[in-house]
């Protein structure tokens, strides 16, 4: 007789200390920390500072903030360092996109999603600095002509066409933590000093390296303030056990990050201080520790060998680190929240994969990280696992067991596709093999890339709306695109696609102009010396990463709504030009009227859609995606690197869906667009094998900035070893045929519905949203509905033929 024993909650495997730390973070109300905004204001208010070179300004302002920010060591902590003045909090970057955020925080009484606490006193303090920054933030300085500035700001706020995330800072890196751990800031600063000798004082190169040295020193000093705090706390601590722990913390923080780490614990502490500082330097997004199982492995192995550490103790430290990563939240403006729901900073931790020579690099630490992930099930970090032909079956099984059991992580990456794609984009084979995901889904070389993978995000189906209405939005007479022929004159699909391509090109050209203005503004006004110190190439070239100093530099542009556009074009082809059920002008008239005619809407919805293994439908999605990617080929950013295309949307498919008019696919205004390369939720009917067959018709090698392909299953259908094996086999086929990435959500729809009704009862319910995990309760009601509605492949019931 087979019976399912109730599985022990994986959390039970964690020590009581870890459970308490997790509880403390999970139960903390997230809020806004004003300290960074106030410190940066203090720095820039001084006229003398405003006359300094930008690199020095940014280094000194960071230094001032790191020194002055409040420091806390919480009960039970082994690893220390706080991102903000709150247990869970986020900072404001007034010199970047902070003015918009401030305006929103101060003038919107309460925010519907991602509600963050802000005290009345802090509100006043922030209100006082708003005037200072109103004409000084990056977005307003990007364009030289006032007209462009106003248009740019207005468009950024409404965000119907595209959103340039880089105007909030570049960030999005996997820093060279291996080097930091190995050399300490002393070693890094020494490298900078040595290179500085090659340049005359006052030159741009010299100045940049000087800024690196200031940043290095500020990071070292940041660690030491925790040493002093721990020493002071230890003196007052009555509990002998805790006193020892505090003394140990003090010893660790005396050592790192200034000096090379000697132990596993020192290594983790060293990189965590850097993790905090990097998040405070520029945008707090996509700062990814990356391949921790690789660069921490020598310390883990040596400590175990020497008897200094047990596997259990290592697991406790990794868990403590992991919990700390959830102590930061992004403080987005209301409009940005539409694009990036779920309080997510995109801090990727990647396990498995190969070394630079292509040998399997999975080790015991990969398993430790995976177990910690499964046990904690927290919002951050964003866990990725790399799979390749030589991945040990034991690791593969452990990964799929966690997924099938509902951890909804890690996201899976296929080395056999990612590595060649990176090589084709200019990476050496060795660097490509050492990739990690960053942010959401973007492959990037650890410590070597400034890939600005979230540079901009673009609404594609809205270009079709313009193409069907001579360059105007439905219901508008103002031309917001380029003039294209009226639909009455379109005689074939060629005419339709030509108009679409014209509108697409027009929109992308606009984006390019705006984005390049922002790129230049970042280089000119917001250099990032600390980031650059931890990216290979910057010190050697004596150039900031924002100016193209990193060994590899890219800008990633996200193509959102490709499948929706493909489905719309296919519906036009079928209904207008093949079946001749109605003329194109009549079809457009239906769209203009909001597709209220439900009979015609049903006709449109019945045309086969992408994601259901229909070659005709899939062909159009492929065409749209490749047309988008081709537009960018050969274009280079102002840092000298190529633009790459990404097929992931974070939550932008929701927001763009809201602003995009009805489509000939039968999709209504307001319905969400497809998430990345996943089939549109409402049109996904034929199950996971069909969805995979469709996705595999897309050449993913064209999308070097990463793709996101979701598969959703209800919990029952993939329960037990049968379910785990089925998931493993599905992914094996998908990867073998060229799949680049997949993330699997195992959801219990009943549970989700209950969680929507009573979010407080399920604060820890994690779901994956386009490349990252978010707490279900943190998502907007629309997003929640979408997740509930997404096809859950019902195969749980055995087929009972009686």
């Amino acid at each position, binding site marked *: 007789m087979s019976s399912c024993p109730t599985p022990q909650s994986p959390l039970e495997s964690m020590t009581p200390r870890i459970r308490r730390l997790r509880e403390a973070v999970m139960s903390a109300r997230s809020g806004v920390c004003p300290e960074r905004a106030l410190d940066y204001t203090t720095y820039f208010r001084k006229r003398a500072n405003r006359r300094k070179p930008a690199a020095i300004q940014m280094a000194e302002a960071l230094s001032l903030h790191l020194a002055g920010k409040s420091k806390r060591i919480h009960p039970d902590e082994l690893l220390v360092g706080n991102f903000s003045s709150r247990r869970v909090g986020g900072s404001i970057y007034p010199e970047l996109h902070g003015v918009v955020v401030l305006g929103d925080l101060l003038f919107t009484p309460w925010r519907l999603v991602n509600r963050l606490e802000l005290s009345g006193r802090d509100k006043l303090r922030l209100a006082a600095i708003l005037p200072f920054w109103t004409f000084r933030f990056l977005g307003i300085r990007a364009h030289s002509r006032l007209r462009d500035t106003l248009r740019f700001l207005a468009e950024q706020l409404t965000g119907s066409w595209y959103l340039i995330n880089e105007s909030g800072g570049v960030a999005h890196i996997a820093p060279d933590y291996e080097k930091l751990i190995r050399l300490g800031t002393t070693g890094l600063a020494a490298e900078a000093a040595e290179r500085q000798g090659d340049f005359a004082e006052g030159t741009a190169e010299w100045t940049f390296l000087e800024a690196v040295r200031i940043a290095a020193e500020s990071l070292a000093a940041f660690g030491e303030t925790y040493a002093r705090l721990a020493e002071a706390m230890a003196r007052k601590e009555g509990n002998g056990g805790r006193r020892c722990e505090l003394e140990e913390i003090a010893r660790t923080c005396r050592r790192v990050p200034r000096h090379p780490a000697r132990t596993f614990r020192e290594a983790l502490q060293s990189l965590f201080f850097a993790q905090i500082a990097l998040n405070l330097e520029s945008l707090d997004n996509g700062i990814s520790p990356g391949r921790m199982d690789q660069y921490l492995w020598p310390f883990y192995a040596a400590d175990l060998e020497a008897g200094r550490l047990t596997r259990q103790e290592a697991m406790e430290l990794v868990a403590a680190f992991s919990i700390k990563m959830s102590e930061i939240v992004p403080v987005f403006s209301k409009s940005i929240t539409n694009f990036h729901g779920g309080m997510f900073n995109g801090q990727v931790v990647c396990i498995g994969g190969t070394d630079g020579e292509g040998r399997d690099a999975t080790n015991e630490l990969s398993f430790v990280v995976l177990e910690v992930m499964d046990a904690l099930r927290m919002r951050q970090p964003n866990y990725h696992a790399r799979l390749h032909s030589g991945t040990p079956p034991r690791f593969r099984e452990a990964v799929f067991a966690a997924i099938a059991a509902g951890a909804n992580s890690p996201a899976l990456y296929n080395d056999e596709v990612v590595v060649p794609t990176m090589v084709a984009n200019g990476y050496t084979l060795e660097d490509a093999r050492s990739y990690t995901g960053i942010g959401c889904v973007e492959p990037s070389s650890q410590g070597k890339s400034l890939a600005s993978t979230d540079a901009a995000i673009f609404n594609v189906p809205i270009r079709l709306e313009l193409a069907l209405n001579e360059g105007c939005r439905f219901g508008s007479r103002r031309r917001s695109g380029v003039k294209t022929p009226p639909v009455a004159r379109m005689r074939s699909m060629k005419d339709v696609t030509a108009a679409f391509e014209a509108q697409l090109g027009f929109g992308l050209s606009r984006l390019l102009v705006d984005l390049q203005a922002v790129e230049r503004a970042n280089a000119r006004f917001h250099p990032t010396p600390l980031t650059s110190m931890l990216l290979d190439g910057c010190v050697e070239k004596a150039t900031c990463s924002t100016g193209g100093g990193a060994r590899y530099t890219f800008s990633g542009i996200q193509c959102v709504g490709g499948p929706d556009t493909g489905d719309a074009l296919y519906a036009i082809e079928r209904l207008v030009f093949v079946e001749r059920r109605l003329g194109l002008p009549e079809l457009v008239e239906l769209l203009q009227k909001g597709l209220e005619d439900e009979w015609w809407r049903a006709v449109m919805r019945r045309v086969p859609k992408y994601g259901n293994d229909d070659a005709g439908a899939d062909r159009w999605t492929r065409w749209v995606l490749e047309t988008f990617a081709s537009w960018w080929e050969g274009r280079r950013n102002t840092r000298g690197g190529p633009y790459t295309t990404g097929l992931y949307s974070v939550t932008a498919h929701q927001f763009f869906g809201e602003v995009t008019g009805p489509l000939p696919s039968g999709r209504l205004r307001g319905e969400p667009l497809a998430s990345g390369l996943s089939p549109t939720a409402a049109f996904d009917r034929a199950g996971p094998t069909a969805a995979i067959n469709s996705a595999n018709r897309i050449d993913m090698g064209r999308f070097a900035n990463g793709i996101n392909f979701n598969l959703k299953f209800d919990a029952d259908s993939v*329960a037990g070893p049968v379910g785990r094996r089925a998931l493993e086999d599905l992914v094996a086929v998908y990867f073998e045929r060229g799949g680049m990435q997949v993330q699997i959500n195992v959801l219990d729809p009943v549970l989700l519905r209950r969680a929507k009704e009573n979010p407080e009862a399920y604060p820890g319910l994690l779901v994956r949203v386009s490349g990252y995990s978010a707490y279900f309760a943190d998502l907007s009601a629309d997003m929640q509905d979408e997740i509930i509605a997404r096809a859950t492949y019902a195969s749980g019931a055995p087929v*009972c*033929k009686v």
Partner: protein
Amino acid sequence: MSSTEVETSGKRAVVFDIQRFSIHDGPGIRSTVFLKGCSLDCHWCHNPEGIRAHPEIAFYAERCRRCFECEKVCRLDAIVRDPDVRIDRERCNRCGLCVEVCVFGALRQVGRFMTADEMEAEILRDLDFYRSSGGGVTFSGGEPLLYGPFLAPLFRNLKGMGIHITVETAGEFPFDAAEPCLALADLVLFDLKLMDPERHQRWTGRPNGTILECFRGLVASGVAMLPRLPLVPEVNDDSDNLRATARFVRENGLESLALLPHHALGREKRRRIGLPIEPPDLRPATPDDLARAAEIITEEAIRVILPDAPEPA
């Protein structure tokens, strides 16, 4: 209903569904092909749309937007304006014109003719998944073995590609005609409902003589077989029947019996295709029912196989 309705030319078969990514229905990732037509008419049938051999039209009342496009195209005046009923089954000749115009999917064709080539092409869409998982195809119904001459060449092709074949049978089929395809099957799931011929007649419309004969014939042929008992409370879950079933399995040299819990979803399907619904209303089998039945069968030295996931009540 009789098997003579099934087309015996062997050139085409009526299929009412091909369900992809079936993973609880034999080894690996599978597609399940549901063939239409069955000689039994079990009171509790879970797939009543598989009973009649010909294509028919189902009505999903909740999807109907009452546009009555169907009325305009029907040449036989068979559309009725009743909230729950749309088709006068007496008049309807199942031409399917109404289905074509029903864009809302309220009227749907249940069952379409397919040639073996067409069926093979559909099945092979997921070939890579069968191969990677050691899965394959499950033929279900209805009674798939009524299509013996149709299935034999198809099975040969599938076997040639290394695809695992499972057949789910209700047991009443022309043995000689089905033998060539059975010889190619990797696994036969054979349903035993009631051991007493009279009770069998009462609940399924047919006595069980042929079924038991086919069972013995299959055992003799040596094909791998798993008998299954759809557990229907108050119909066949009494100790007498369970023990008799277990003994029959043992006498035939088999060691296991799978239990399938009854669910009540079939009744809604009956309504949609205009099949009569007769009392009594049978309640679904609960995990307790299963456990109790399992205990009795185990006492007869037969191993019980329970479904992976409990059925939703």
